[in-house]
């Protein structure tokens, strides 16, 4: 049975530039009320069955909160229909209807009554609400003395205890500490098992995966994908990746331009030496060296020779360095270093360490990494060319940034190949 039916719903907001809300202004300066229209939702179709838990995901401004507000009837669609069966409880914004000068207990009564509970119903639930919130010691203090997390605990405890058939939650959980979040998730599972329909917005994909039977990805006011949670989230991640891939490429273009323009001070040359991993990031100059050999371009390719800046952990990556020789040199060592965005060096090596002989300088050298088994995160690539004592011809820090995605939830720096055994 469908408890929520949304049929071709459109919603626009008016953005006034110079809004007049008085009779005088509305009559005298009619043309002054010019506004722009912004369509926040463009034809949404949804059916949610009784007892389903649905995760709403999408980028900022994609219309998630708007959809929830429409479902609770805080706002109404410009076009289309919304049909809801059953009692709705919602937690869209924190502390709505809380009076700072009233105590926690008084606010529970006030707030629960705003959700449509009667005195007797609240009396019955009061203990549950207080114990769920974990605020026993503070319950008779005025709410203005609460921290924002405590505020949220109280608000959440009321909203979740009102015995609704449908529960709508915007991303408010994030404020709670880990133990309260855990409690909320347990409670949501409990409600779910009782047959409550839950729709919630989250930017925490793992939580969506854990809780939801169904996910909906909103993109610019449209449903981009809905259905099986894992698929929807992967589609969403793919989209984010391609998007930031474009951005990364632009970023690194800018970076190489700016480094090329930098003046190299000869003094730096003597200070900086040794291998990639010893470079301290504090130095604000990003490029050093006498440019006897000059790096021209660095690219990263996947196994299909496609230039990329987003890789799935375990992928094959080829780093290509193009350079030119400005002055004849005796020996040349090429090196790379991969840093996490918190400056942890994940790996660094060079042709000297690897005992790879450079017998001719062709203007290009590639290094292939068979298995880029880093963990999800943003990384920077340093590239250097120096002599065998480490004196740099050209050293460029953070010449490229790239992202690595894993679709599992491991932690750490690298993924160590492993197997589990039951013995």
């Amino acid at each position: 049975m469908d408890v929520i039916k949304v049929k071709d719903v459109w919603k626009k907001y008016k953005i006034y530039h110079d809004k007049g809300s008085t009779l005088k202004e509305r009559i005298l300066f009619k043309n002054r009320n010019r506004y722009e229209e912004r369509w926040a939702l463009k034809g949404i179709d949804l059916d949610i069955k009784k007892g389903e838990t649905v995760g709403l995901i999408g980028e900022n401004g994609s219309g998630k909160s708007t959809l929830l507000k429409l479902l609770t009837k805080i706002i109404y669609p410009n076009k289309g229909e919304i049909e809801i069966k059953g009692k709705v409880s919602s937690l869209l914004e924190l502390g709505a209807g809380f009076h700072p000068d009233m105590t926690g207990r008084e606010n529970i009564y006030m707030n629960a009554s705003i959700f449509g509970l009667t005195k007797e119903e609240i009396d019955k639930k009061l203990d549950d609400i207080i114990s769920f919130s974990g605020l026993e010691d503070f319950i008779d203090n005025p709410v203005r003395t609460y921290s924002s997390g405590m505020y949220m605990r109280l608000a959440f405890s009321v909203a979740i205890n009102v015995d609704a058939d449908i529960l709508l939650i915007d991303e408010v959980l994030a404020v709670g500490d880990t133990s309260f979040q855990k409690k909320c998730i347990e409670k949501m599972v409990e409600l779910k098992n009782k047959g409550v329909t839950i729709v919630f917005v989250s930017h925490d994909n793992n939580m969506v995966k854990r809780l939801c039977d169904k996910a909906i990805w909103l993109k610019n006011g449209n449903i981009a994908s809905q259905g099986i949670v894992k698929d929807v989230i992967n589609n969403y991640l793919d989209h984010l990746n391609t998007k930031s891939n474009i951005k990364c490429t632009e970023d690194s273009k800018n970076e190489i331009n700016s480094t090329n323009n930098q003046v190299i001070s000869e003094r730096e040359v003597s200070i900086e030496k040794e291998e990639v991993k010893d470079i301290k990031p504090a130095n604000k100059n990003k490029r050093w060296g006498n440019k006897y050999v000059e790096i021209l371009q660095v690219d990263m390719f996947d196994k299909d020779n496609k230039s990329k800046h987003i890789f799935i952990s375990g992928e094959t990556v080829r780093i290509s360095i193009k350079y030119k020789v400005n002055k004849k040199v005796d020996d040349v060592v090429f090196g790379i270093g991969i840093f996490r965005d918190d400056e942890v060096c994940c790996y660094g090596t060079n042709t000297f360490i690897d005992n790879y002989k450079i017998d001719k300088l062709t203007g290009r050298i590639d290094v292939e990494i068979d298995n880029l088994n880093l963990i999800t995160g943003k990384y920077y690539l340093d590239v250097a060319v120096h002599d065998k004592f480490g004196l740099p011809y050209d050293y460029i820090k953070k010449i490229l940034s790239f992202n690595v995605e894993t679709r599992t939830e491991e932690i750490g720096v690298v993924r160590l190949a492993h197997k589990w055994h039951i013995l």
Partner: protein
Amino acid sequence: MIENIKEIYRYREMLKNLVKKDLRTRYKGSFLGFLWTFVNPLLQLIVYTIIFSTVMRINIDKFYMFLFVGLLPWIFFSTSVQVSAGTIIANKDLVKKIYFPREILPLSVVTSGLVNLLFGFIIIFISLIISKIGITVSLVYLPIVIIVEYIITLAFSFLVSALNVYFRDLEHILGIVMMAWFYFTPIIFPIRMIPKEYLKYFFLNPMTPIIVSYKDILYYGRSPDFLMLGISMLIGLLIIIFSYNVFKILQKNFAEEI
């Protein structure tokens, strides 16, 4: 409509809490606070009494009582309507963030005004006894008049509370309207002083039959004109249906307009 009334009934606890909160801030929990709310009507009463029994010299026995029994119900009407005008904006936090039937807000304003009026009647009764006008059996009709007034007040409150979201100066315009309305309602003067040819215009004013009935029951100690009261009730119901529907339409954009 039936659905709506059911829903409002479901939210009765919220209504109760809002009324309680309003009364509590008004009375500050003390008897003195309670008396304090009558300072304003009392001052008005004194001023009008001085002007109209010494300067203008309306020839009415115990003029202050004649005025008093009409003044308090009038104040209930006019303040309720004026406060209602701002109530949606005053509660914009709620309106923007939580669903509840929005009509609860003006309803709570008018209802707490009503509670205040009921306390006022206690003072009126005491004054009637002290001033030796006394109270009569016609008092049994008082609840009917109160109900009719409540309906009419509610009707106007729904209307202005919704309109004020779109036209924010309505609240201020209302101040002037209410002053004029006060003088076009037979509160300070008895209805018999109105020239015959203008009388019908006075009865276009829905507050006229209400005030006249209060005076009949309380000051003259006689039964009100039931035909007049019946018509008044009917008109009250008609305008409340109209204004409630206007409210229901306008409330859809409340969250976006405030």
